[in-house]
């Protein structure tokens, strides 16, 4: 029995409970009671609680949610709240499960957040391929309208809040918030240059807050029990729990809501029953494929946002042996908690082959707007492919590093970095695997 079975569960508490997925079942468990409480509070007091809670964005960047909300100009005439349900970061499968099991928790969180932001016309942008989940959300929204939790005069408070579920049509880039807004406006999903940030000029050129599914689902708990209570659940500047998705070579892959003090090694060994087939860990992607990997000797670091960025037990990513990647301002890049997608690779894994598949993904998903990313991700895929399939040439490893370094930081959005960081990270920590492939040219698969 996992010692992590009885830890505090918030957003995943109703997993497996079919009844709770309906409005009646949700209400029976106290659903929408926090909305009643929130509507009796001042909007700014709600934002203050969220700030005090240390809730950080669960989509990837880990930015402080309350601070983000505070960026909306006080004199804004129309504000929008948009939920980012475009989950498509490889290795990440929490939002799809969260929406399926607890759609009304998301709606309740959104109405509370919308009230705090004075946002009346709001949207859930859901990935096109999530057809089952679209049907779940569309039904839940209809139910909520029917009971007055959405609409013109919510629970007699005078607050008007509309919610529309908007389907995408297949494009990873639409998870980037400004690409998402362009897609919502009916355009090609290409990211916008920032600033201005969406909180100033977003959907339909009006101030807009874009938050991840899990982020918004945490809001009712914060308003119910207080920001201080939520903050105390997590270490340092990271409040609450974290829902991680563990996949790859473990005995019990799954979606687990855990305290952020837990280390990567504990997640693998104690929560997921260890590596399959009695093997050992070779590499771990800690937060979706955009993040540099951890090696086996770096797993004793907590899974929390700041630890993964700063803990000195994690070797910095290099652009060449002995030369650290400069994240800007002289900061080094270790890794990040990202989207919570933890991918475990055992010691039999063909690392160059895995990296090729990751590069193939980014080459496929580049929106084509910025030259370094459009061309660079294609080159990374091409060179990584020939290395992986035993056709590598002398100099290919340095070429991969050079292309990746040329992309990083030189594009409008982070997709370019998302390809470059893991490329450099894998080369930093598993260079010998690539060298062996190139040396045995023609002999491999």
């Amino acid at each position, binding site marked *: 029995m996992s010692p992590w079975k009885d830890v505090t569960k918030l957003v995943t508490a109703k997993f497996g409970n079919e009844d709770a997925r309906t409005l009646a079942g949700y209400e029976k468990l106290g659903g929408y009671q926090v909305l009643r409480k929130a509507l009796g509070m001042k909007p700014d007091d709600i934002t203050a609680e969220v700030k005090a809670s240390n809730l950080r964005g669960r989509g990837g960047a880990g930015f402080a949610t309350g601070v983000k909300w505070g960026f909306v100009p006080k004199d804004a005439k129309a504000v929008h709240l948009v939920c980012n349900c475009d989950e498509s970061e490889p290795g990440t*499968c929490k939002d799809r499960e969260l929406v399926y099991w607890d759609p009304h928790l998301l709606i309740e969180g959104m109405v509370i957040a919308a009230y705090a932001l004075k946002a009346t016309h709001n949207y859930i942008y859901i990935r096109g391929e999530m057809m*089952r989940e*679209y049907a779940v959300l569309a039904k839940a929204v209809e139910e909520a309208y029917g009971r007055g939790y959405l609409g013109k005069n919510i629970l007699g408070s005078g607050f008007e809040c509309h919610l529309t579920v908007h*389907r995408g*049509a297949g494009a990873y880039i639409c998870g980037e918030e400004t690409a998402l807004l362009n897609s919502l406006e009916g355009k090609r999903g290409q990211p916008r240059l920032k600033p201005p940030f969406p909180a100033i000029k977003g959907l339909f050129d009006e101030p807009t807050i874009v938050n991840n599914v899990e982020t918004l689902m945490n809001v009712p708990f914060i308003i119910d029990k207080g920001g201080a209570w939520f903050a105390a659940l997590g270490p340092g500047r990271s409040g609450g729990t974290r829902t991680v998705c563990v996949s790859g070579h473990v005995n019990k892959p799954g979606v687990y809501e855990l305290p952020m003090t837990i280390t990567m090694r504990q997640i693998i060994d104690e929560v997921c029953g260890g590596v399959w087939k009695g093997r050992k860990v070779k590499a771990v992607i800690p937060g979706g494929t955009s993040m540099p990997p951890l090696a086996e000797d770096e797993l004793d670091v907590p899974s929390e946002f700041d630890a993964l960025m700063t803990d000195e037990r994690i070797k910095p990513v290099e652009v060449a042996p002995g030369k650290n990647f400069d994240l800007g301002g002289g900061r080094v890049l270790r890794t990040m908690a990202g989207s919570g997608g933890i991918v475990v690779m055992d010691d039999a894994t063909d690392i160059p082959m895995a990296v090729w598949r990751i590069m193939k993904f980014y080459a496929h998903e580049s929106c084509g707007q910025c030259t370094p990313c459009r061309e660079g991700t294609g080159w990374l895929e091409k060179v990584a492919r020939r290395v992986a399939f035993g056709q590598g040439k002398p100099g290919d490893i340095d070429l991969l590093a050079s292309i990746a370094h040329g992309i990083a930081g030189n594009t409008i959005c982070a997709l370019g970095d998302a390809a470059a960081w893991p490329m450099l990270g894998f080369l930093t920590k598993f260079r010998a695997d690539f060298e062996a492939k190139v040396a045995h040219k023609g002999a491999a698969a």
Partner: protein
Amino acid sequence: MSLEFSADARKKINDLLQKYPSSKPVVLAALHLAQKEHGFLSDDALKLVAETLSLPYAHVYGVATFYTMFRREPAAKNILRICTNISCMLRGAYDVMAAFEKKLGVKKGGTAGDFTIVEEECIAACANAPAIVCGTRYFLDVEPKDVDTILDELRKTPRPEGEIV
């Protein structure tokens, strides 16, 4: 040949037009509907969407060709979206893909009878890899030996993507 939307689709589009400040944001939904009713997005289907929403044809064309779920050619009623991204690959997705290709006698991207095979990027079912999504139906923890069971089920109960549009 000019195409038309059904009365049901026209009603859905009119309802959506009430939810946005202009017609442009409705373009993705209208393209999904056009694809459902006309099988794929031919030039005429794009023209239909452009005229219905009073948008330039070039804009609609630009949007339709950006998103991978929009098709410019016909597909079968069951689109097997087989994920081969990292989590699925690590647990044998390429063997699953090969098993479907062999059974259906067609390579990924191709159509055979009631099935079109698509190599899909991560479908957010990583904890149950390898995974396949077909319309609203997920097939999880798939192994090559499951091919017949999956195809039989979908022959009996097709899961067209238009089902939820």
